[in-house]
Structures are given as C-alpha cells and as structure tokens.
C-alpha cells in the first residue's frame, strides 16, 4: 500500500483535529473523533482525493477505523494505486 495514501488520509484527519496525536494504526472511532459530520467529510475527502466512488457495501466501520484500513480500501477500489 502506498505510503502517500496513508499520509494524505492522516493529514486530513489531523487537519480536522490538529491537537490530536494520531498515527496510521490508531482507531479514530475509539478516539471519539467520528460523528456523522466528520464521517461524511471523510468519505467525501477519500472519494475526491483518490478519484474513487465508495459503494454502499464498502461503507463499513471496519474500513474506516484507521488510516491503514482506509488506505487498503482505496487500494481495493483503485487497483492501479497499489
């Protein structure tokens, strides 16, 4: 998985929560960052940044817990990126 994908996702999360210290394996749900507003922003960011459309059946909590899992999701939906 591309490091840049994870980095871009982490940059986005940190831009919304600059006071938080977060790494690629930390569960953002467990940290209490995710509400419906942020979830929508996160999905829009990923779709826009990586030029993918996330189908309903991929909108599962486990795909969005960490920067790692989100980067894996991006990889599945845009194979050329892997």
């Amino acid at each position, binding site marked *: 998985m591309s490091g840049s994908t994870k980095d871009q996702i982490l940059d*986005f999360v940190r831009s*919304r929560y600059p006071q938080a210290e977060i790494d690629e394996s930390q569960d953002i749900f467990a940290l209490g960052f995710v509400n419906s507003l942020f*979830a*929508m922003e*996160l999905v*829009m960011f990923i779709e*826009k940044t990586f030029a993918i459309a996330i189908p309903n059946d991929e*909108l599962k*909590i486990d795909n969005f817990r960490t920067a790692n899992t989100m980067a894996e999701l991006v990889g599945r939906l845009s194979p050329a990126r892997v």
Partner: protein
Amino acid sequence: MAILAESAPDTLRVTDRKSARAFVDTHIVPYADAYDRQGRVPEELLERMTAAGLWAPFLPPEVGGAGMDLVTLGEVHEEVGRGCSSVRSLLTVHTMVSWAVQRWGSPAQREQWAPALSRGDVLAAFCLSEPGAGSDASGISSNVVAKNGGWVLNGVKKWITNGQRADLFLVFARTATSIGAFLVPRNSPGVDVAPIEDMLGTRASMIAEVSFRDVVLGPDALLGPSGFTAGMVLTGTLDLGRYSVATGSVGIIQAALEACAAYASRRTVGGTLLKELPLIQAKLSDMVTDARAARLLVAEAGRLKDAGEASTIMATWVAKYFASTAAARHASEAVQIHGANGCGHDYPVARLYRDAKVMEIIEGSNEIQRITIAGQAEREII
C-alpha cells in the same frame, strides 16, 4: 402528479438564473401573497414547475435531469425564494430526496424513483422531525423492525414540508443498531397525513403531520448503507437542504431590498421621498451589502459541492447561518420601512418577515449552527 407539459405549453425551461427569474416574475411573484393566504400552492403552478424542469435539474441526463451544477441550482433556488419561500420549500425537500436517491440508492432504487423524481411525476418530502425531536435528530423515536425480509415502520413525523401533497416520503427511523432512511410511498397502507394549518411562515408549503402505523415495507425500502455510515445519508441530505435554505434566504433579502427600493422611491414623508432620508438609505445599503455577502457565501458552498470538496459541509453551515439571520434582520427592517403598510396584505414584506423567521429554524436551528461552527473553529484554530 397529473399531467403537465401539455397543460403548460407556454412554459420555458429553466436552465439558469436568468430563465429562473423570468419564470418567477411571471408565474410566482404576482400570486405569492394569494398562496400565502390560501395556505397552499396550486396544482397549476406545480405543473408549470414540471414543464419548466424545476424539480430536480441537477440529476444526470440519463434519468431525465439536466445535469445542472449546484452553483446554478443555488441561483435558481434563490430566484424561486425571492418570489415565494413556500414554493422554494417544496423544491428544497424534493431536492433533498432526489439527491439522496441518486447518491445513496441502489441501481434498482434509482431506476424506480429517479426518473419520476426528475420529471416531477413523483413529488417527495423529507420526514425527520417528530413531535418530540427537532434539531436533535438522535432523539427520534420512529422505528423499523426487520420482518419477513423487509421492514415494519411505526412512528409520527411532524412539520413535514409538502407532506400534504407529496407522493413519496424519505423517512428516518431507528433500526436495531442505528438510524436508517426508508423510502415510503404515500399510498402505502398505514400511512396517514394530517394537514397542519396556520403556520407562522411558509404558510403555503403544505405542511403536515405524517403517521406510520405498522407500514409494511419491502427490503428495497432502505436507502443507503446501514451501520455507522447510515448517519451520512442524513448528514448529506440535510447539507443539501441547508444549502437550498441558504439560497432561499438570499432570495428573501433580495425581495426585501426590491420591495423597499420601490416603496422608498414613491412614498413621501413631509414632502421628502423616503429614499432621500439617511436612515432609510442606511437600511437599504445594509440590505445590498448583506445580499451580496450571503450570495457569495452560498456560491462558495456550491462551488465546493461541485468540486466534491469535504469542506462544503461547513461552508454550507456558515452560508445558511449568515443568510438566514440576515434575511430575518432585513425582512424586519423592510416592514419597518413600510410602516403600517408593511403590516398588511398590500405589500409582500409581511410575508417576507414571517417566512424569514422560519429560515432561522429549519434544517438546523441557528443555535445548532452556531454550536457546530464554533466546534469546527475550536478543532481547527484554538
């Protein structure tokens, strides 16, 4: 809806602000006060709106839409809001449901509903608020229970714009694990619609209380994902509704400005035209300034939507907050400028004043907006 283009053959298609303004000045402005007094928008206008392609022009051409960008859609909604907030409210809720079907619907759901929503053959309403839950969406008690592969819906929704007329309801209800969005045809057994009359503002928006008693729904009634992302259907749909309300608020400011400019150019006090008085000039200049500022905020939110930028959600909160508070302020000043004339039916400003108050409440009260905007500022700045 019964038929349309044939009954309004002289109606031009609305494709941009200019054509929207022409449509509104011809078909809405002369009648808006009558709609307000009658408490409903007549079928004739609904049919003309269908003939003009006003209901969901942002939908893609393959389902019958015009692929209109959201900046232009905002301009169209502003013009409609300038003419009549009740009519704009009908567009708002129809837009919300149509967008939700297009964004979150399965191919089968889109095929079933999107073309009819695009044409306006099916009019839609958004059902979130309840007698005991308004801005606090998490407080809703309507619920669905999975049964026989489908769902059974129970609950009561209140303050439903176009509830009296809509053919399709997008209903938010509790599932076993979260809140889900369900497409419920009005003619489903167990659906009951009770009109709510004599509202303060948007009196012609055909508001209703809609009850759902043991309404049996198929598995295809659930719109969008379940689980944690179900809330995104609500967030995204409200975002677009908030955008439309913001545009409509700009329309109210513009309507107040136009009414006051015309009145101040005719009315004299002690032999002096109102427009020559510095205090009146100050009110008019503030209307001009806020109309332009609100319009720019709305346009920026629309541009970010068209670009798919996540920051559009907060931009829309800001635009709606600014535009709605400015609309309420300037509609009040518009009545003031008109004096006693502003309190009667001979001028539109009393209607603008009542409608503007509603803008501060719907799609997230201004208090909720301020909490949300401040929360974002706290995370990003403080």
